């Protein structure tokens, strides 16, 4: 190999290194608008209104370092309208100086009105198809609000409102169990299954949405407008038809086996809400059987937990008493689950995936039931709820000081 040839080769290599590594698809950080949340509404003309919550990096950094940063809000919000989801997305570029970047979008808010009237089926394809947006993006419904109100509200502690909502759902799902953090992909999966329908958590603005937009909102100790997770939206044929609240919502979360911890209030000697039973871990198994040519569902819950509060003297040191309380807890949990099953049956929508269970266990029988599962079979289905509750500990005390107090008076 001659010297000359080597020189040419070296020259070519340098050219390659400098040009090829330049990347065709470069996306510089300071040329991007990082979208943290997206809201979707529909206006009177029937067009989609998309609201972009864009992170304002300077102000987020300032808050994290404890001052020294910008004075403005952590996010800036823009809206754009269009006839399709993608259309409204690109119309956004007429208002936003930088390239819209969705890889960090972790919240998608859909307005209740849109979910009720048009349904959510037609709007999700654009998101599933896009390689930039994550399939694990959380979806919520703006409960009795416009999606833009949720997206525009500023929040304290977690400066980025999208983070605040997602973290609230995560924490609430973990310690209370009345909410579900559902993802884009999870919703699409349930929409496409014939034997189940999705449940999506609602988020509402408590207070005045107009005040929520202003930076003053987060400069007070009590916010003028705050975002709160409220209820589970139940869907049928892709349209929102009703809301599950309170114990009914929690019953549904029990059945879906998504509940991690929760508090169950128990009645004691005829007085309501005396004992606080904290469930520490639980496991739910749903199984299907076919009896007399009709499907039957068994929901088997196994819960373990502690007694963490008594408001009347209860002799917790006595194992027999604990056994009695376990029975009460089983009854209460069963009541919650049955309440939620009844609610779903009335609405004729199988939010628990009982149909899927029948499909998996009896693929042949499913051919008969599957066709009108939601309309006729599910509302009549027999659901047997079995609960085994166990009390493991009673906290740092055995009997409550309430017993001593009563004895001394």
């Amino acid at each position, binding site marked *: 190999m001659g010297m000359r040839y080597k020189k040419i080769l070296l020259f070519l290599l340098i050219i390659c290194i400098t040009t*090829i590594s330049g990347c*065709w*698809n470069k996306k510089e950080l300071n040329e991007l608008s990082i979208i943290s949340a997206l809201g979707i509404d529909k206006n009177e003309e029937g067009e989609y209104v998309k609201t972009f919550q864009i992170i304002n990096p300077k102000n987020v950094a300032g808050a994290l370092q404890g001052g020294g940063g910008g004075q403005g809000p952590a996010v800036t919000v823009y809206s754009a309208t269009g006839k399709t989801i993608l259309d409204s997305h690109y119309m956004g570029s007429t208002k936003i100086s930088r390239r819209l970047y969705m*890889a960090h979008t972790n919240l998608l808010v859909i307005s209740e009105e849109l979910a009720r009237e048009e349904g959510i089926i037609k709007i999700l394809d654009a998101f599933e198809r896009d*390689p930039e947006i*994550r*399939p*694990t993006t959380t979806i919520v419904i703006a409960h009795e609000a416009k999606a833009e109100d949720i997206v525009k509200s500023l929040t304290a502690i977690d400066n980025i409102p999208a983070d605040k909502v997602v973290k609230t759902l995560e924490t609430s799902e973990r310690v209370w169990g009345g909410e579900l953090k559902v993802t884009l*992909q999870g919703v*699409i*999966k349930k929409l*496409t*299954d014939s034997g189940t329908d999705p449940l999506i958590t609602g988020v509402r603005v408590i207070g005045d949405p107009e005040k929520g937009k202003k930076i003053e909102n987060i400069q007070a100790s009590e916010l003028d407008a705050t975002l709160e997770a409220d209820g589970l939206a139940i869907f049928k044929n892709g349209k929102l038809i009703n809301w599950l609240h309170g114990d009914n919502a929690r019953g549904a979360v029990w059945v879906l086996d998504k509940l991690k911890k929760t508090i169950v209030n128990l009645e004691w000697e005829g007085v309501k809400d005396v004992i606080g039973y904290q469930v520490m871990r639980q496991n739910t198994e749903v199984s299907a059987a076919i009896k007399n040519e009709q499907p039957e569902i068994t929901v088997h819950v196994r819960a373990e937990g502690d007694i963490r509060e008594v408001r009347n003297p209860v002799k917790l040191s006595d194992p027999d008493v604990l056994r009695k309380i376990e029975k009460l807890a089983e009854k209460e949990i069963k009541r919650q689950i049955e309440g939620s099953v009844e609610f779903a049956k009335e609405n004729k929508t199988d939010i628990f995936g009982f149909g*899927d269970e029948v*499909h*998996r*266990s009896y*693929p042949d029988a499913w051919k008969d039931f599957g066709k009108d599962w939601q309309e006729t079979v599910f509302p009549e289905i027999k659901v047997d709820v079995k609960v085994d509750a166990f009390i493991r500990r009673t906290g740092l005390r055995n009997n409550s000081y309430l017993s001593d107090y009563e004895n001394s008076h």
Partner: protein
Amino acid sequence: MEQAKISAYQLFVLIVMFTVGSALMLPLASEVKQSAWLAILLGMGGGFLLYLIYHGLYQYYPNILPTEYVQKLLGKTFGRVLGFIYILYFMYLAARVLRDFGEMLLTFAYEDTPLFIANALLIIVIVYTVRKGIEVIARTGELLFVLAGLLAISGLILIIASGVIDTANLKPVLEKGLGALLKTTATQTLYVPFGEVVVFAMILPYLNKSEKAKRAGLLALTLSGVTLALVAAINISVLGVSLLSRSQFPLLSSIQMIQIAGFLERLDVYFMLTLIIGGFCKIGIYTYVAIIGTADLFNIKESSQLSFPIGLIILLLSIIIASNFSEHIQEGLQIVTLYILFPMQVIIPVLLLVIAFFKNRKKNNN
């Protein structure tokens, strides 16, 4: 045929990397839904038989390339024509895999980059490697095998740890019936990727210890078959049937579901690395085989001289074989398997083996 030797272990690695290669990323046997993994295992069983056929031919002619022994079996003219057809087959499949590779890169990462550039960059690297001969390809394969193994193991741990696997999705098994399963096996998984090991008929003569060819090949097919079936089962468990059948790249969708501890997420790079390693090995082997076949058939002494022209043909072919991705995939499923893979991987080798059997029996009798 170049003067080079590879070890049985290197052959094993090459077969594994080749068969797992691009098959790992594309949906396999999605018609049978929950039973896709079964179809892959059945395909592997068929692959064993096919490999034994190729191996049987190899035992009759352990020291010469198939392009040469077809001339002994069928006579000079027919043998040359058939050899030439096989070279076209290797080049066409190299182009197909290159197209798969480029389409994947463009779909999920480089949407603004022209397909030509993505494909050209990979083929340049491959041409460079292939010029160096089979020994270098084999050693590169060994290195990449370790990397791919680490990726596979860590990926498996991550996907289990993130708790996204729901084995209930695997039920009901055999919903479409046994017939549909056998049909999918016979029309798809048998050929892609297992029947594709027909290219190794061109590589077996380089093996230093010919008696180890059978063991290495069958073990390699077992490892790749089990890997592919496991990945298929994981994809179904993570994604569910409906999403799986809509996914262009199920493995990517599964990887994107991983979310651990709030920061281990969006691990698309796993897919990217698997894609590049698998694509490199598979296209590399096809390209190499096309080159040595051409050199053998046309008596070209320096086979490495052919690297650039053949690389260029494969590159151009990869661009013109289809006008869009859906067309490319449909061609692969409906036309290529029936009219190209079936005759090239099954019918012709079986006929050749029968002819070789009778010719050699005559010889032995004499």
